[in-house]
C-alpha cells in the first residue's frame, strides 16, 4: 500500500530521465547556438577585413572541437588573406579531409598552392585508383561484406544441404571485406593518409640529420605536403615530395588530421 499523495517510484524514475535528457539536450543546443554565434561573429570580422580577429574566432571554435568542413575552409580563407599560405593550405586540406567533395576548398587550395609554390606528394598509382572511396566508405564496405560472409558461412554450417551458390557468395563477401581492409590500410598509410602534414613555417629545409647544421635535402616552401614517418624529440622524419626523405623540426609542420 502506498501512502496517499506520494509519487509512484517508476514515475519518479521516468521524471529524472526526462529531466536529465532535457538538460543534456539543452546544453547541446546552447553549445551549438554559441558556436553558431561565434562562427557568425568571425565571419563578420572577415567581411570587415579584420582577418586576424576572424582567425582568432575560427581558431577558438576549432579548439572547442566544433569541427566542420566550412569552418576550416573559412579559416583557410582568413589565413590566405593574411598571406599565411602554409596555414591556408593546411586548413583547406582539413576541410577536404572532413568533406572530400568540397568544391570551394578544392579551388582555393589550388590557388593557395600556386601562390606558395608548394610541393605536393605524388600518390602512387595504386592510391590514385583507391581514392575513389574514402577510408570511412571502405570501413563500412568491409563491415557489411564481412558480416554477410560470416552469416553465409554460419548458414552453410547448419544447412542440411550445402549450397554451392551460398558458399561462393560467402567467399566473395569475405574477399570483398578483405580487399576493403587492405584498401583502408593503403589509404591510411598513403600520401593522403593519417601521416599527412603541411609545412607551415617559412624557409623550411628538410635535413639529413636532426641538426640545423646538417646538410639540406630539400627546401620546402610553406604549404608543401610531407608524410610523417616517425618523430624524435623536436624533429620528425618525413617522406618528402620528389621521393626524398629528411628531418624537419616539428614546429615547422602541422598534421592535417587533428
Amino acid at each position, binding site marked *: 500500500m502506498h501512502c496517499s499523495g506520494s509519487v509512484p517510484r517508476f514515475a519518479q524514475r521516468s521524471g529524472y530521465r526526462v529531466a536529465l535528457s532535457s538538460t543534456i539536450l539543452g546544453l547541446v543546443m546552447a553549445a551549438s547556438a554559441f*558556436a*553558431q554565434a561565434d*562562427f*557568425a561573429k568571425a*565571419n563578420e570580422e*572577415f*567581411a570587415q577585413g579584420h582577418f586576424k580577429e576572424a582567425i582568432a574566432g575560427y581558431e577558438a571554435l576549432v579548439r572547442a*572541437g*566544433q*569541427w*566542420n*568542413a*566550412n*569552418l576550416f*575552409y*573559412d579559416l583557410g*580563407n582568413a589565413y*590566405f588573406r593574411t598571406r599565411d599560405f602554409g596555414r591556408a593550405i593546411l586548413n583547406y586540406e*582539413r576541410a577536404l*579531409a*572532413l*568533406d572530400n567533395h568540397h*568544391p*570551394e576548398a*578544392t*579551388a*582555393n587550395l*589550388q*590557388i*593557395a598552392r*600556386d*601562390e606558395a*609554390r608548394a*610541393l605536393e606528394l605524388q600518390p602512387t598509382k595504386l592510391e590514385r585508383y583507391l581514392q575513389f572511396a574514402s*577510408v*570511412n566508405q571502405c*570501413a*563500412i564496405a*568491409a*563491415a557489411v561484406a564481412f*558480416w554477410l560472409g*560470416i*552469416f553465409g558461412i*554460419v*548458414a552453410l554450417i*547448419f544447412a542440411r544441404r550445402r549450397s554451392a551458390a551460398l558458399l561462393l557468395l560467402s567467399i566473395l563477401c569475405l574477399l570483398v571485406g578483405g580487399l576493403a581492409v587492405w584498401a*583502408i590500410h593503403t589509404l*591510411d598509410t598513403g600520401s593522403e593518409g*593519417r601521416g599527412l602534414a603541411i609545412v607551415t613555417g617559412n624557409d623550411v629545409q628538410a635535413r639529413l640529420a636532426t641538426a640545423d647544421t646538417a646538410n639540406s635535402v*630539400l627546401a620546402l616552401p610553406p604549404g608543401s605536403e610531407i608524410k610523417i614517418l616517425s618523430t624524435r624529440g623536436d624533429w620528425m622524419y618525413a617522406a618528402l615530395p*620528389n621521393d*626524398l626523405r629528411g628531418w624537419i623540426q616539428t614546429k615547422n609542420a602541422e598534421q*592535417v*588530421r*587533428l
Partner: protein
Amino acid sequence: MLQRILTATFVMLACVQFAFADSPSVTAVLSNSEATVGETVELQIKVTGPGDARPPEEISIDGLEIRSTGTSRQFEIHNFSTSSSVTYNYTILPLRAGRFAIPPQTVHAGGKILRTPELALNVADAPGQRPQTTTRPGRSTQNQSTNPGDLVFAELIVPKKTAYVGEIVPVQIRMGFDARVHPRLTEPPDITGQGFTAQKLQQSSQNLETINGRPFEVVTFKTAIAAARAGKFEIGPLKATAQVVVPRRRNAPRSRSPFDLFDLDDPFSDPFFSNPFAGFGERRDIQISSDPVALEVKPLPPNAPPSFSGAIGSFTMATDAKPKSVQVGDPITVTTTISGRGNFDRVNAPLLEDDRGWHKYPPSSKFKQDDEVGISGTKTFEMVVSPNENKQSLPVLAFSYFDPAKEQYVTLHSEAMAITVQGGGPAPAVAAQAPSSAPAAAARGRPAVSSSTNPQDILYQLTEPSRAVASFEPLYTRRAFWVAQSLPLAALFVFAGWKIRRRRLDDREARRIGALQHEAAELMHKLRRDEASPQEYYAEASRVVRLKAALASRNRAVDPNAVDAETAAETFKLDTDSCDRLRRLFEQNDEWQYSGTHNGPGKISPENRRDVLELIENLK
C-alpha cells in the same frame, strides 16, 4: 602437354617483349683513348634493340687505319625481359701521332637512323713502354722442369704515366696460364697500393694466345683507378692465387716435348704430359704477381669555374626542354644529357647561369654506362623549373669539367632555348578553376558573404557551418563503429542459436521415429512367427497398428498409446471393410487385455492370423 604450354607461353612472352621493346639505341666505345703509333685500339659500336641494324660500311679518318673485325650478337632474357644487341668490332691502327676525333657514325636500325657519339683518340709519337710483369715465360737457365712460375704470367697495363687527382685511369689486367695446366683462380686478382681507389674488377675476355711458341690461356680483367691525392704512386703489384696441375718430379731422364721446338726448356717436356697414365700430376697453389707501375698524380689547376663539380674527362652536353609553351608557374622539364668518358660519379647537374625569375626544383639523374667499368657513358639529368614571370627563353645551363688532355677547365653552355610564357600574374591556370566551382556552391545553396571580382582571387566565405560536428578519426577507430558491430554479432548469435535448437529438435524427432520403426519391425517379425498366445498376438498386432499410425502422422508427433481404431482408420483413410476389421482387432485386443478370456476359441486360426497380418501390412 605441359612442356608445349610452357614453350608456347615462353614464345608468347618473347613476342610480347619484342612487340613492346624499346626503340633501338646505339653506343660506341674505344678500348683505350690513349695509344701510340702502331698500337691497335679496339672500337665497338653496339646497337641495342629490335630490328636489323646496318653499321657504317667504312670509317675513314686520315691518320687512322680502321678495319672491321667482325660482328657479335647477344640475346639476353632477364625476368621475362628480353634484350638483343649487335656489336660491330673495328680495329684502329694509328699511323701517326695526334689527337683524332672519330666523328658520329650513322647506323640504320629498326627503321631509324641513329648516330654514335663522337669519340676522341690521343695518339702519342713514341711507342709506349708497357709496364708488365717479369714473370713472362721465357728461357730458363736452370733445370726447373716443373717450375709453376714458368706456367703463368700476369701483366698490369696502365696506359698513362701521369694523371690528375680524381681522374679515372683505365687499368687492364692480363693473366696468362699455360693451356695445359688446367688453371683455376682461387683468389681473384687484387691491385695493391695506396693513394688511389679502384673500381670492381670486371672480366672482359678469355682467349688463347701463343707466346714464345707456347699456347697460353689469357684472361683479361678491366677496372679503373682514381688517385685521391697528388704525388708519385706505385700501382700494384697485382696479386692473385691460382691452382694448376703440374707433373710430379721424376728421376728418369725426360724427352723433349713436342711443344719445346725451340729448346725453351718447357716444363711440359716432362713424360707426364706425353703419357698421362705413366704418372699423376699434382695440383699446386701458385702465387701470381706482376710488377708495380709508377703513376705520377698532379693536382688540378686552381681557379676552377663555379659550375665545376669535380668532373674530369671529356664530355659533351645536349639539352632539351618540354613543354615550350606554358603559363606562368607551370613546370618545364629540362633534360640535360652529358655523354663522354670520365669520372661520371662526379658529374653533377649543370647549373642555371641566371635563375632570376625562375623557380627550380632538385634534379634527378640516371646513368647508362657504355663499357664494363663505367668510364664511358651517358648521364641524364631532369630538372623541373617554372617561370615566375614572362620569359622568352630558358636560362643557359653551364657544365664545367677538367680536360686532362688539354690540361684546362672546359665549360659547356646550353643553347638559349626559346619558350613562350603566357600570363604575367601568378597562377592564371587556377583562376580558370574557380568559376567552375562556383556554380556547384550555388547549387548547394551556400550563401556568399563576399564575392570577389578578381578572377585570381580565392572564392567566397561560407556563412553556414556544416550541420554536424565532424571528426578526423577514421570510422574504424571510433568506439561507435565497434559498438555497432555488436548488432550483427548479436544477430549472428541469435541466428546460430535458432539453427542449433532446430537441429536438436529435428534430431530428437528422428530418434523417436527410429525407435518406433524399430519396435514396429520387431513386432511384425514376432507376429509372423506364429508362436504367440492370442492375448499376446492381439496386443502386439494392435501395438503395430498404433505404431504405424503414429509413424504415418509423424509431423503431428502423435503418441502411439493415444491411437485408437478410429484414429488409425482416419490416418490411413481406410475403407469401411478395413475399418471394421481394424475395429474388431482392437476389440479383440481389449477383450484379451481386460477379461483375460475370449468368447471364441483359445487359439488363433491361421485364417485369422493371415487376415490380421494382411490388414496390418496394408496399412500404409
